[in-house]
């Protein structure tokens, strides 16, 4: 029997860029295949070609042994190929049913939408996935995982053969990820082949049967998940050994820089305490919604504090806004660099100058020369790869954007730097660079407070780990002794099976 | 939140002090006249209902007739140039079945339909200051705008015996202005052909600032231009401002204009303007309401039919024009008490 999907010699060139070069893979019926690679490795492009969104420059795609030429997404859908996009395609103001049937609602004689029929059909599709979501609800009211399931239901068709999931867990919590995986497994059992595009190694170990690794548009190798390791996959992705492992570089924590006691702010932060010393990296772990980011925003003055005390260098500190935090020597690298961190339309110089306008001015006059010199220093020091400091930040890669974001805050020479999700959406190579930078900062005596959803990251960076749950700090672990399991056990009452599988299979990072 | 409320309250208080306390000598213009408990209510409806020109003259006639007859006369219509708003004001007023309505018809021919609707509802409706001949209105009371054009043409021809280039300025889409400009053009064509050349008919939108801008551009386009004729109340002020700014001397360029505020007559004395056409505006509403009241009450019949049965027409009334020039401006300034 022919493979469900057979891709032979596929290449794709965009003007000036070779996105895919001579890639051949084959996926069996009911197989869950991971596509792994750094940002820009071509994994999304491959998925999009199979889904009919891009036409290949050369090469062939075979479904069940027959060559297909897909004009567009619709044509692919007719052949039983569905895709769930990374960006998401749902309209939050509309109902679940309307989203599932966007543009193809069942209509009556006068062109009116047959709402009952549409809802019944939507309920049936969602039911196929083994969950229940009221099709009349608005998507805005759903959790991220439910929305993701609606995305999948939207991709389901009468005779679904192949489903492409592009980074489906980016916005999901561990629990939600777990539920999504159940749905995916169920689909695979019913004979649907799955292409799972991701750069999260742990998920691949938890979910997939085989994994194909892409590097610079070429296939670097395909492995059975059961027979490979994190280190091998990283080597395939990066082409060299990268160590994300914990490094005990013998830093000695100094004076207490931040002392937050029983801080409360709104409903998200109820009773949170943390102490950070100079030269120490303290990580806050916890599930999404545990109040980690909100706690940090409160320390930074971006959120109003309703209770508790905070002291910086022993002095009571009550910021009226972020500018007060800045004046006190506190910086914060926000979680989402695109929406709240960077000025994407501006160049590197201006992005870095944003926090230190006083430093790059002569009196009242803004000095382009000083700002440029400052930016130049950071570009060199942080190894930001860019043609010039005048490059618009929106054109940089994710890793380089993240470095600019860090530089923006390093420029003000903070005593305490809060970093929320230091490596979100950053590929493995840049991730190691950022870890190096953070450690170097701590070695220089900066107090670092890091928030991360990525447990391997927490374990690799932290001198101490503070665990938060439901707005409260619920425990402290020593960085050297903690395991993912011990962190998670604190963070949640029930240990998620995802976490269990992460802890057991291959997650040796 | 408390701080926010305080701040807003502070700002509002400051605003109130400025507009309220200091407003004591500042009189907001009345927009209804006559006894508040009058049995009959008449409406006057216009665009830019609080145009200085209207307030200065039309409102005076309105107040006089309201007190004379003991009826209520109310001003309605948008305060800016808003034709849809104007039309809906006519519809809404007539839906209340007032004793009579006078619509300023000169603004736009599209007012024909709402006036028709008023008449269909049995509301006695007349048109003033610009006719709507197809509306079936009971009467037109006001200036014959063709005669306004002719009056300005005569003034210019008198001041320019040797002829020269002339430009006009008006609200180009207002029916009465079109009539005036057509009257002006026709009179020049018939009597000044070969000597006087009309080089442009421009639009100033009833805005002195725009009139000044257009005048300046016309001076550049035609360095030998000899005269400007302005047909809306703001044209004259704009033309004079532009001439002053261009360093012209009074009388160097011939200007004719419509009346604006009493102060504007000074320009005729100073020699900037050769002829200011005065419409006798105070008569418009005075007679419009008087005739409507008469229509409602006189009981006179024609061929045995009374007003309600279509027997009695209201006569049209041409209120005539007065041209203020150097000859009579002193009398006018004295009478109006302008220093």
């Amino acid at each position, binding site marked *: 029997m022919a493979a469900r999907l057979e891709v032979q010699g596929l290449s794709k060139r965009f003007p000036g860029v070779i996105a895919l070069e001579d890639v051949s893979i084959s996926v069996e019926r009911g197989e869950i295949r991971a596509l792994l690679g750094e940002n820009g490795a071509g994994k999304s492009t491959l998925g999009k070609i199979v889904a009919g969104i891009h036409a290949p420059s050369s090469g062939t795609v075979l479904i069940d042994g027959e060559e297909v030429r897909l004009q567009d997404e619709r044509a692919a859908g007719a052949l039983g190929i569905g895709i769930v996009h990374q960006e998401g395609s749902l309209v939050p103001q509309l109902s679940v049913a309307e989203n599932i049937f966007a543009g193809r609602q069942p209509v009556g004689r006068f062109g009116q939408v047959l709402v009952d029929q549409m809802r019944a059909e939507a309920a049936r599709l969602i039911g196929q996935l083994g969950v229940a979501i009221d099709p009349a609800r608005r998507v805005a009211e759903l959790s991220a995982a439910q929305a993701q399931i609606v995305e999948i239901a939207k991709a389901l068709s009468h005779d679904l053969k192949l489903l492409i999931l592009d980074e489906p867990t980016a916005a999901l919590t561990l629990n939600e990820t777990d539920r999504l995986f159940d749905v995916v497994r169920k689909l695979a059992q019913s004979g649907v082949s799955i292409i799972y595009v991701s750069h999260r190694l742990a998920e691949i170990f938890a979910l997939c049967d085989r994994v194909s690794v892409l590097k610079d548009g070429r296939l670097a190798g395909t492995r059975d998940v059961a027979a490979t390791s994190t280190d091998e996959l990283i080597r395939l992705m990066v082409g060299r050994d990268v160590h994300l492992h914990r490094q005990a570089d013998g830093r000695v924590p100094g004076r207490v820089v931040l002392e937050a006691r029983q801080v409360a702010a709104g409903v998200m932060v109820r009773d949170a305490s943390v102490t950070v010393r100079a030269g120490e990296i303290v990580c806050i772990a916890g599930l999404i919604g545990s109040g980690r980011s909100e706690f940090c925003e409160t320390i930074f003055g971006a959120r109003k504090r309703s209770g508790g005390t905070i002291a910086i260098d022993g002095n009571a500190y009550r910021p009226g806004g972020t500018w007060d935090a800045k004046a006190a020597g506190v910086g914060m690298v926000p979680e989402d660099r695109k929406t709240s961190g960077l000025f994407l339309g501006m160049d590197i110089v201006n992005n870095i100058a944003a926090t230190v306008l006083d430093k790059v001015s002569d009196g009242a006059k803004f000095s382009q020369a000083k700002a440029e010199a400052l930016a130049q220093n950071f570009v060199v020091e942080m190894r930001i790869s860019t043609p010039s400091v005048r490059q618009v930040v929106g054109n940089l890669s994710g890793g380089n954007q993240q470095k600019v974001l860090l530089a923006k805050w390093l420029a003000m020479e903070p005593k305490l730097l809060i970093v929320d999700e230091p490596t979100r959406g950053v590929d493995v190579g840049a991730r190691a660079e950022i870890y190096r930078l953070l450690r170097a900062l701590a070695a220089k005596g900066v107090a670092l407070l890091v928030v991360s959803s990525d447990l391997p990251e927490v374990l690799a960076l932290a001198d101490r780990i503070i665990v938060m749950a439901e707005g409260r700090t619920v425990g402290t672990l020593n960085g050297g002794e903690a395991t993912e399991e011990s962190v998670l056990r604190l963070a949640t009452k029930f240990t998620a099976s995802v976490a269990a599988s992460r802890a057991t299979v291959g997650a040796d990072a | 939140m408390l701080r926010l409320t305080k701040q807003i309250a502070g*700002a509002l208080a400051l605003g109130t002090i400025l507009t309220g306390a200091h407003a004591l000598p500042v009189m907001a213009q009345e927009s209804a006249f006559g006894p508040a408990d009058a049995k009959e209510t008449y409406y006057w409806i216009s665009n830019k209902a609080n145009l200085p020109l209207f307030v200065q003259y039309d409102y005076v006639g309105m107040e006089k007739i309201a007190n004379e007859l003991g009826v209520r006369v109310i001003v309605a219509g948008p305060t800016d140039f808003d034709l849809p708003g104007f039309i809906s004001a006519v519809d809404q007023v007539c839906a209340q079945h007032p004793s009579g309505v006078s619509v300023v018809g000169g603004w736009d021919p599209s007012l024909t339909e709402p006036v028709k609707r008023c008449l269909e509802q049995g509301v006695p409706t007349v048109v003033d200051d610009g006719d709507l001949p197809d509306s079936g209105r009971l009467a037109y009371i006001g200036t014959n705008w063709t005669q306004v054009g002719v009056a300005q043409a005569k003034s210019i021809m008198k001041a320019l015996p040797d002829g020269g280039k002339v430009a006009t300025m008006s609200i180009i889409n207002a029916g009465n202005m079109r009539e005036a400009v057509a009257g002006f053009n026709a009179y020049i064509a018939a009597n000044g052909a070969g000597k006087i050349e009309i080089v442009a008919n421009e639009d100033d939108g009833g805005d002195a600032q725009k009139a000044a801008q257009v005048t300046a551009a016309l001076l550049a386009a035609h360095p030998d231009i000899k005269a400007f004729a302005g047909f809306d109340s703001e044209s004259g002020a704009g033309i004079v401002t532009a001439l002053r700014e261009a360093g012209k001397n009074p009388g160097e360029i011939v200007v004719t204009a419509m009346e604006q505020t009493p*102060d504007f007559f000074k320009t005729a004395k100073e020699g900037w303007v050769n002829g200011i056409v005065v419409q006798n505006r105070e008569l418009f509403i005075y007679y419009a309401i008087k005739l409507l009241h008469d229509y409602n009450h006189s009981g006179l019949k024609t061929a045995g039919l009374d007003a309600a049965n279509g027997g009695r027409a209201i006569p049209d009334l041409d209120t005539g024009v007065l041209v203020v020039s150097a000859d009579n401006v002193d009398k006018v300034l004295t009478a109006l008490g302008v220093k």
Partner: protein
Amino acid sequence: MTDTTAATQRDALLLRVVRKLANSRELTLFILVLVLAGVMAAVYPNNFPTASNMRAVLLNLAPVGILVCGMMLLMIAGTFDLSCGSTLALAGVWAGVVASPNWLGYGPYAGMLAGLVVGGIAGLINGLIVTRIGINALIATLGTLTIFRGLTYVTAGTGVTPISDEFAAFGRVADPLLRIQSLFWVMLVIALGGGWLIARTRFFRQYYFIGGNPRAAQLSGIRVDRLILIGFVIMGVLAGLSGALYAARLNSAVVNAGVGIELKVITATVLGGASLKGGEGTIFGGIMGVLFIALVENAMIINSVGVFWQGIVVGLVLLFAVSLDRFKTPGRG
């Protein structure tokens, strides 16, 4: 073969030139202004390039030019003020009421000051509504657009005419050399001063960050709300100044002054390189935008373009100028 290569090279050069122009709206506009002026001067040597015509063009663009300086600041910060025309009228009428001997009669200087203060208060109210109550600027200033206009009518339903000769002198004094009236010089000072401030100073630099990404600016320690409030006050004061001078020029505070001017101002600002999303633009560009529109309007009257066609031409010219953006260097991943 060589022919086609040469042609391709020529095309590439042309594309580079077009890109260069598209990347700097100020430069594009500057060249468009020069081209338009050059063509007009060649075709109408006795009409267009005369001192009196140039004086008239510069003088008449001044009220809009002053407003553009404020609007540019707001649009750089990603917001705008639709109520500026009403603020202009309100401030003009208050200037007249305070100055005119027939009303309060406090004299010309008090009148001018009143215009500025009333404008500033109007701006403050806009700013408070936008930053403290958190109403979107479009809706907030759409509301105050009618409120301020209404206040103008309530203050003086018929306007103030005449104000006084002393007050009118503010709008009528001209410099002895070029003989252009004060309105233009005031605009020039504001444009040059404001242009320098916005381009060079640390304080105004912050507005670019706010427009570029308000959330990121907030998290960079920039006092976003306070700066936006200040921006609205500056806009208000400039509208007040423009309104008072406008009244002085005509020696008459007209209640309907500046109706619809806000769209003209926004048009010039966008034409001059501001983005509706914020984060871009310079005062120089805004002034070039105003100058360009004023020249087009002037050219049409000199060309004897029929009045009904003038609006169409202005619209087409604007669309053309803005459509050059399509050639901008592609970017943003």
